[in-house]
């Protein structure tokens, strides 16, 4: 890459970006503009709305599970089979069809072209197809609710042999459709993911060097690379599982007697499936965590009016975490009977990953240090993220050690840990991001009062839900159990106090879940009646806030693409007229820099 040193008089040196409007497909029909759109921003909204819709379903499933745990038998249609099906679908939808799709398909599509100063993704048509394939995957997944036997109830990890044996609910159609849906999802995601990566590599505006990119872009970029390399493992295991299921092969199925009958399978290895699944599954954690890291870095810096502390270390940490995430997968398998040396290796790599992660946390805190903190709704969610991520991360250090993990495995401690670290934390980042970028998407602010109410109930409520689960886990209450009661209908093998805790958790869960309706109403209400926001309501430096139109039109930047003269975090620069200098402003007196 040819680099030219730009001196102080950069504005004289750099000609205005003489980039003619690229060959964008301009639709003429309503259908082409809003449905089969090739504009990354519309595709982003399509991804987000689909993901949030299916995520709402998963939220309802989790409430139903909680109701059963607090008041066993209170709702008649929650049978043991239905309960484990809810567990499975809740997990799968939340991890893959909500979080992955929302962070990469939603935020990736919206933010990457705008933040790097591109007109669109590099292959808009492929990008559009990506969304429709994702939608197909979602529809197939939902279809499994209406098949004989219902959706699969094998847990979101789909472990064989039980995933395809007749004793498990949804062992026929359910698991078949699940595998097909996952396979299709991977194909669709790959089309989108290639676009995100190549757009970052190839379509950056003039002057946007890699190290001038906002951390959000760095994080989504790295997460997409992880996804491109990890999802093949899911694809391969889904195909092999389907062949075991439908054609009677024995990749994963051992010789087994099921319901008194010797099955045709023999000699297969369930542990092989676990290796393949977790080779995908662990990077998946970072596929949803890294974008959250990036977004939170952005929000903290903007709303504390301060440059991000340790930008280079933040980038390096993202890259190192991405690399390490491929060598820790077997820490999900400590109880699979693996060689102790193997466990030692994976415990070590797992604990090493705490180092770059801790660097990020320190840098977030140091970014806040003596900043001009504005407790806006996005900022509240970002700070909430840092809190929650620390809490969830610390229990990860417990579970990363084999000897602590073995007794805690399959208890509510694990449920509490992974919800804090990879469910609640990323969702807090999602909320923060929505409140932050909503003005750019719609041109209107979200209602502040509703936003603060939403934040506080959600944040405090989440702690009421997940903190007590750690205690339940340490007491030994197992996860995935339909009920803990004996024949008399009362909890007889967990103490009554534990059942009280379960009731409390459920009440908090119902409260938090219903508060999300306020958020949805806010999204709906503010789209037409919110306060007009102007182009840059937060005073942010990154390129998406410097567009000529808000919301940005197709092509993003009008006639000329911006040129980038500085990094993304010039906040409160001494001597500058304002407390932020956008990335496309050259050095001059106005910016307080010598000319």
């Amino acid at each position, binding site marked *: 890459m040819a680099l030219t040193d730009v001196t102080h008089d950069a504005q004289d040196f750099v000609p205005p970006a003489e980039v003619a409007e690229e060959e964008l497909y301009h639709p003429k029909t309503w259908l082409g503009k809003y449905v089969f759109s090739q504009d990354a921003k519309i595709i982003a909204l399509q991804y987000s709305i689909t993901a949030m819709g299916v995520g709402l379903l998963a939220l309802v499933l989790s409430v139903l599970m909680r109701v059963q745990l607090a008041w066993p038998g209170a709702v008649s249609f929650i049978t043991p089979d239905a309960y484990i099906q809810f567990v499975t679908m809740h997990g799968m939808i939340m991890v893959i069809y909500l979080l992955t799709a929302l962070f990469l398909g939603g935020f990736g599509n919206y933010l990457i072209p705008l933040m790097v100063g591109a007109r669109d993704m590099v292959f808009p048509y492929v990008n559009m197809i990506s969304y429709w394939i994702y939608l197909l995957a979602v529809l197939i997944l939902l279809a499994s609710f209406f098949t004989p036997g219902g959706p699969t109830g094998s847990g979101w990890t789909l472990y064989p042999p039980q995933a395809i044996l007749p004793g498990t609910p949804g062992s026929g159609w359910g698991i078949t459709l699940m595998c097909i849906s996952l396979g299709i999802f991977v194909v669709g995601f790959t089309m989108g993911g290639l676009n995100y990566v190549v757009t970052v590599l190839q379509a950056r505006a003039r002057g946007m060097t*890699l*190290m001038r990119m906002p951390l959000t872009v760095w994080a989504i970029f790295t997460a997409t690379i992880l996804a491109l390399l990890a999802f093949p493992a899911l694809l391969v295991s889904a195909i092999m599982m389907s062949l075991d299921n439908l054609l009677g092969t024995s990749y994963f199925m051992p010789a087994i007697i099921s319901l008194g009958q010797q099955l045709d399978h023999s000699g297969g290895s369930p542990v092989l499936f676990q290796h393949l699944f977790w080779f995908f599954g662990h990077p998946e954690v970072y596929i949803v965590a890294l974008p959250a890291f990036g977004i939170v870095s952005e929000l903290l810096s903007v709303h504390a009016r301060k440059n991000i502390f340790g930008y280079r270390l933040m980038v390096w940490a993202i890259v190192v975490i991405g690399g390490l995430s491929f060598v820790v997968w077997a820490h999900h398998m400590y109880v699979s009977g693996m060689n102790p040396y193997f466990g030692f290796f994976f415990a070590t790599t797992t604990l090493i990953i705490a180092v770059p992660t801790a660097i990020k946390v320190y840098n977030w805190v140091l970014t806040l240090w003596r900043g001009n903190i504005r407790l806006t709704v996005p900022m509240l969610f970002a700070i909430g993220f840092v809190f929650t991520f620390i809490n969830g991360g610390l229990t990860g250090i417990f579970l990363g050690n084999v000897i602590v993990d073995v007794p805690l495995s399959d208890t509510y401690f694990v449920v509490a840990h992974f919800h804090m670290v990879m469910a609640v934390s990323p969702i807090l980042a999602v909320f923060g991001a929505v409140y932050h970028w909503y003005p750019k998407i719609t041109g209107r602010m979200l209602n502040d009062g509703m936003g603060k109410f939403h934040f506080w109930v959600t944040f405090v409520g989440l702690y009421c839900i997940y903190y007590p689960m750690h205690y339940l886990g340490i007491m030994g209450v197992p996860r995935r159990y339909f009920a803990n009661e004996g024949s008399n209908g009362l909890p007889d093998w967990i103490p009554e106090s534990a059942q009280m805790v379960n009731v409390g958790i459920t009440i908090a869960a119902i409260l938090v879940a219903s508060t999300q309706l306020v958020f949805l109403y806010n999204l709906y209400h503010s789209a037409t009646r919110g306060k007009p926001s102007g182009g840059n309501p937060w005073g942010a430096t990154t390129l998406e806030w410097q567009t000529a139109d808000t919301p940005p039109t197709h092509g993003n930047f009008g006639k000329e693409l911006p040129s980038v003269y500085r990094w993304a975090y010039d906040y409160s620069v001494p001597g500058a007229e304002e407390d932020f200098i956008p990335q496309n402003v050259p050095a001059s007196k106005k910016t307080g820099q010598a000319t």
Partner: protein
Amino acid sequence: MSVFRTLSTKPWVADRGYISDSHGFSSPTAKVFLSIFLGVITAVFALLTAAYFIRMAYADWQSIPVPALLWLNTAILILSSVALQWARTSARREQAVGVRRGLLVGGAFAFAFLVGQFLVWRQLGSLGYFVDTNPSNSFFYLITGLHGLHLLGGLVAWFRASLRLWRGADVAKIRMSVDLCAVYWHFLLLVWLVMFGLLLVT
């Protein structure tokens, strides 16, 4: 080393601002796209290979016989790759005839390869080696099937490029498509050689 230099720049030092004259890599965007996609396919086949070795270690594994026809298929795939390389070189020299012939021969050989693979499946089936007979059979069908599907996907791109050429498109205009097809073909040939080697060795 330039990666390390890039990653160690200090973007906050305002008066050391660089501005880049080029956007990203010097190679065309479509090529970067294809290279990363090839990385993804590599991941798929690498994982299959890993699973193959792990599953092989179990007691019930019995190697599948390698039909002689596979050697012929391999030769056909090599020829297919060579023909596309011919089309690619001709496209660079803007020789329309060479591009047409190269594409046609390359595509025909690719079809022949797929038919040949299907015949191998039929042969093995008639000998009683079905997909569920033994894990080695399952892997054989899975690997050849996935490889064939990837080639089929390549043929879609090949078909689109050929169609444009026959409808009278300028050679210069489809040069990139021919280039990408050739690279993809060479890659799939490489994957096949590795997979074939795996089957032979085990």
